[in-house]
């Protein structure tokens, strides 16, 4: 494992989001029209993310917790409801046209599904050439373009480039496609890469290759990477820092190793206990099931639970949890480790949760 945490300076920060909020309006029936009640999916609420040069930040959480929405907001593909996105400390809000292009030159996104994110009617060459041309990296003349394409493919380890350049997406395997998608993102020469579940659609044995490639790129090109996944184990393996989302809110964050080994928030703990663990070996019995009062049901995002959104499922829930939104509480047990849970209000002590986690 590389990337030993180094001292962070603000100059390392590439992309930063503060208080990011996204509500999707839902149109409802006649009744709502009459009551004039506007309902919305509270997909993302008050999310803060910082992406630093040369570091991978993982965003984990169950399906529908708003991870992709965060990525799309950061890529400026959705207009945001509230909050601030800063590129190199400068607040940006772009919708389209030239400012948008200028922004995406710096911040590129990779999609979850490599089978769907390449247009089946275009060749690898087309996809990459467009990425280069749009961002003015194609050079002058066809020779330079050819060279740029070559470099790009080499970067994602699709060598020899000639073998892949004129292929259609369907002629490539899943891993190769995802590499092309990454190459396309690199074509813009970005500083930040938003990878939205880049390997979840890939086969187990191929996943690793793509993840290793991303890590390698981070090191070589000093990229800031947002790695979105629901597989918390891969976050531990791949990311320097891990953020946990639940129902549109950040609930815990900190150094990956700390978050995965000493989870503080009850939700994180539930998540980690639920993950398959070969070392437990057929020992699962009814008493072994992680405690979850709602039987695994996620909450409605249209009418999210008041207070802490996890409280209906939380075994430690206190009366306060259902009324007041917990702020972040710094935890002393690791680099920048924090959790948004009332359990840490008084104590600030990691003792109890730590025991829970290492049980």
């Amino acid at each position, binding site marked *: 494992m590389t990337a030993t945490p180094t001292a962070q300076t603000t100059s390392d920060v590439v992309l930063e989001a503060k208080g990011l909020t996204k509500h999707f309006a839902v149109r409802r*029936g006649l009744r709502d029209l009459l009551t004039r009640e506007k309902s919305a999916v509270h997909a993302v609420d008050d999310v803060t993310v910082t992406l630093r040069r040369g570091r991978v930040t993982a965003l984990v959480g169950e399906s529908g917790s708003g991870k992709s929405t965060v990525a799309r907001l950061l890529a400026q593909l959705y207009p945001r409801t509230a909050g601030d996105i800063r590129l190199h400390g400068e607040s940006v809000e772009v919708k389209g046209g030239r400012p948008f292009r200028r922004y995406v030159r710096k911040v590129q996104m990779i999609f979850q599904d490599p089978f769907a994110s390449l247009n089946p009617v275009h060749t690898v060459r087309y996809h990459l050439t467009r990425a280069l041309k749009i961002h003015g990296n194609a050079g002058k003349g066809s020779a330079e373009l050819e060279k740029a394409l070559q470099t790009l493919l080499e970067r994602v380890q699709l060598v020899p480039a000639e073998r892949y350049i004129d292929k259609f997406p369907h002629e490539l395997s899943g891993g190769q496609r995802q590499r092309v998608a990454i190459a396309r993102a690199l074509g813009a020469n970005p500083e930040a890469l938003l990878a939205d579940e880049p390997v979840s659609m890939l086969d187990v044995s191929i996943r690793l290759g793509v993840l290793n490639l991303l890590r390698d790129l981070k090191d070589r090109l000093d990229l800031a990477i947002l790695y979105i996944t629901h597989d918390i184990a891969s976050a531990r393996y791949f990311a320097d820092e891990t953020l946990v989302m639940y129902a549109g809110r950040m609930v815990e964050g900190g150094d990956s190793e700390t978050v995965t080994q000493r989870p503080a928030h009850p939700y994180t703990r539930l998540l980690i206990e639920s993950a398959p663990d070969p070392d437990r070996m057929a020992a699962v019995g009814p008493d072994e099931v992680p405690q979850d009062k709602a039987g695994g049901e996620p909450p409605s995002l249209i009418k999210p639970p008041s207070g802490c959104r996890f409280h209906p499922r939380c075994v430690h829930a206190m009366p306060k949890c259902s009324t007041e939104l917990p702020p972040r509480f710094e935890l002393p047990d690791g680099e920048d480790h924090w959790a948004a849970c009332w359990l840490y209000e008084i104590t600030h002590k990691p003792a109890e949760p730590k025991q829970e986690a290492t049980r």
Partner: protein
Amino acid sequence: MKFLLQRIAFYAFTAWAAITINFFIPRMIPGDPVTSLINRYQGQISTEALDSLYVLFGLDKDASMWSQYVDYWGQLFRGDLGLSFTFFPTPVASVLGQSLPWTVALVGITTFASFMIGTFLGVLAGWRRGSWIDGLLPATTFLSSIPYFWLGLIAIALFAGQGSFFPSSGGYEPGLVPSWDGEFISSAIRHSLLPAITILISSVSGWILGMRNMMITVASEDYITVAHAKGLSERRVMVGYAARNALLPNVAGFALSLGFIVGGTLLVEIVFSYPGIGFNLFQAVGSKDYPLMQGVFLVITLSVLVANLIADVAYLVLDPRTRKEG
């Protein structure tokens, strides 16, 4: 709920648009009912009659388009479609009232039968790939590519000759008085057989194909495999699982096709001289009888709208996914 609201808005809008189109199109026609009356009689009406006829038809007054439009709506709300010129001074409403039952009976029943038969055969063809019904498809495709009217004419030539069981024209035996007695009904049925068969032959293949293709698509859904895995009887799987789901898109198609079919049977009515609404349109177009034209068009459009509404409701009943609560 939202679904219903949307549909209602859609129907209101469509009805308005259709009625407006309906109002303007005939007024763009260069000829007028008087000249076409004169044309129709080729010399039997003297040219001096022109003025008299204009007065008679009430065409001697000038009114602005807008005020005519407003009047038109006023009349519609009173259920008044104006007076037909061809059958002056019979109100359009009663002309239509006279012909509509015929079309509804012929077209309605045949379309329904065609849909049912086509769907049934389509279910079998899609379920038993490679069976004889599948082999029938090229033939039905060919039949459905033949224009209605041609098929009708050939049918008349082949089957409706002198002394044949099938009459070649009309809705019932001339001389019979329409009533609900056995003689009249059997005569009406006998007259409708040939046109009905013609419509059936040329429209059934569309349903067979649509249903067959949907069956094939549905047959590879997981829940069909599950149904088989559950050890249900073949019929239960075919009917309750596959056909039930494959039917859904066809229901919408059925409603939409009513529009096409009414248009298509216009020709059947012309060819078989069937006293329906399509024949009325044909007459009206020929004699620039725009009140009648408007009336026919309105009836066709409204019936298509109603059919759509029924299909929507049917869809609502058939597909629980559209029945969102709240």
